[in-house]
């Protein structure tokens, strides 16, 4: 029964999604760019000319070489090298990989938290609802970035820099996931409240289904489309948050850089004229976030779900 409802839902969505996708040039272009970036990130170890994590391959003599097309460039390093002599193309490929991993990981975590708390708040109502939504309100009014910075600072202070660096990926997924759960929880709650009024929920109750069965098998599938839209935009937000944390030194260490920590390490050299070390990863970050946002905009227009406003 579960599979029947889900696949029917998916079929309707697919056909309509596909139809409007074909008509939207911006959506198609964004999707192609995103797909290319995700694929090149996944296959970074195969595509990258060098392994930036392997210190033996780095020659300090090659440091701060400009990208091809400028005087003094070396053909072996198409996008130039950074201050340690690492190939920029390789570090950017690996950096995108780290950024995407954290982005997706954080959204999966916040979706899990958000769906759980949102369902509880919306379905149970009363005191549970009041407390959860109060926490969400306060956390949102503090801004997710602030919460992430504080949690990151506390973690870094308690683990110490070295230890923090080693487990940074998991830390960042945890920090960003915890900081951003209210967004999804509010959306889920809003759609649960709308769904709860409908007759099929009453019918399920009358038939004697248990509460969590009603929540997960009956209400949840009907709230998926707003979660999907919010989730897309949240991936972009998570990637930005990760970059911000890394830029502040609360994120990925330089030995295993994300796009954010690449920008940070390159920033020190911008005054000496080596703009590419910081601006090339910056450009990749902006394009990545932009295409995800554009896809999110398109999804929102198509699905037009009950988004929580304000």
């Amino acid at each position, binding site marked *: 029964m579960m599979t029947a409802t889900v696949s029917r839902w998916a079929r309707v969505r697919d056909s309509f999604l596909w139809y409007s996708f074909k008509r939207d040039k911006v959506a198609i272009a964004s999707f192609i760019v995103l797909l290319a970036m995700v694929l090149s990130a996944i296959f970074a170890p195969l595509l990258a000319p060098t392994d930036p994590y392997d210190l033996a391959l780095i020659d300090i003599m090659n440091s701060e070489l400009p990208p091809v097309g400028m005087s003094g460039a070396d053909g072996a390093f198409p996008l130039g090298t950074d201050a340690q002599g690492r190939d920029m193309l390789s570090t950017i490929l690996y950096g995108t990989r780290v950024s995407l991993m954290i982005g997706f990981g954080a959204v999966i975590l916040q979706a899990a938290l958000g769906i759980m708390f949102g369902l509880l708040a919306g379905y149970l109502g009363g005191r549970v609802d009041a407390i959860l939504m109060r926490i969400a309100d*306060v956390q949102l*009014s*503090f*801004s997710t*970035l*602030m919460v992430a*910075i*504080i949690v990151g*600072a*506390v973690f*870094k*202070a*308690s683990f110490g820099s070295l230890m923090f660096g080693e487990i940074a990926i998991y830390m960042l997924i945890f920090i960003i996931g915890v900081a951003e759960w209210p967004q999804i929880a509010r959306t889920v709650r809003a759609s649960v409240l709308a769904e709860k009024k409908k007759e099929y929920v009453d019918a399920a109750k009358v038939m004697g289904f248990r509460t969590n069965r009603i929540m997960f098998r009956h209400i949840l599938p009907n709230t998926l489309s707003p979660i999907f839209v919010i989730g897309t935009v949240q991936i*972009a937000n998570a990637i*930005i948050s990760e*970059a*911000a944390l890394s*830029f*502040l*030194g*609360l994120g990925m260490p330089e030995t295993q850089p994300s796009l954010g920590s690449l*920008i940070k390490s390159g*920033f020190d050299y*911008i*005054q000496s*004229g080596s*703009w590419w070390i*910081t*601006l090339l990863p*910056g450009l990749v*970050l*902006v394009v990545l*976030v*932009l295409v995800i*946002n*554009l896809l999110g*905009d398109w999804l929102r227009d198509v699905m037009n779900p009950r988004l929580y406003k*304000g």
Partner: protein
Amino acid sequence: MLAFLVQRISQAFLVMFVISMIAFAIQDGLGDPLQELVGMSVSLEERDAIREDMGLNDPIYVQYARFAGNALQGDLGISYFYGKPTLQVIAEHLPATLELVIGASLIILVFSVPIGVYAAIRPQAFLSKFFMSISTVGISIPVFLTAIVLIQLFSIGVTIELFPTETGWGTWLNGALSTDGGLPSYGRGDELTHLFGTWTSGFFSWDGLWHLVLPCVSLASIMLPLFIRLIRAEMMEVLQSDYIRYARAKGLSSGRINFLHALKNTMLPVITVGGVQLGIMVAYTILTETVFQWPGMGLMFLEAITRSDIPLIVAYLMVVGLVFVITNTIVDLIYGLVNPTVKLTGKKA
């Protein structure tokens, strides 16, 4: 009015209570005041004695009560690094941050309202579409990256040699695309005016203003697209309403309809969201101040993290928490005052 005030203020106290508990937990979990006070050379027995003396063996709630009591009296401990009361350190760094936020808010206000309103009134115009696309891109650029690009363009300068210089056009294009740079990208400058106490300002000298330009523009850049989109969306919704059509049926001029009838209704939700966003800007000052080495609270906080200056971290947390709570409460009150349909009893009429 009184009920509304009491409700909002008691809510603010509750939030502050929770924040103080978190701050206390951080201090309790991370800070070892003994380490700082006595160093390594003291024997275990002596340590225990001092520990007892300082009340560190008391039950946790007693320790919290002491912490909260001190906090209420304005005592949030001594900074390890500065060796001064943390609140004094924060007070010294506050003006720089405040100035940044004020400058950025002015930029946001001056640009977001006209652009948002224009995009709502003429949604099909080329300029509107242009501004909306720019703001979509703007939302996707993290604030520190905007800052870096601005530094490259206007502080360091860019020399473009893409076009052949044999022709006059090539030279002109190269020149037109190149930027001179020269804007300061570091600190607040030397010519700060002393207002009172430790309070200094860069608003009153050319050098000070000059130093403010890039940081303020960077900080504004993250919020400006959000505000433009928000104002446009709210205004478009208002323009669809019956009372706007009725105003047209009365034969009013489009100026009065757009700028009095519609704008006043648009600004109500914008004030609420805007106030909250103003608080959120504090988070972004940390990033902006890092890029521009701006000696404000954000940079101070980051340095405190690298120095493991726990009392200063905790104090920052408390102060920023207070700032958020106060702005949110004030925004609620202003909303209540501006909107005639809220009777200030906490319920919408």
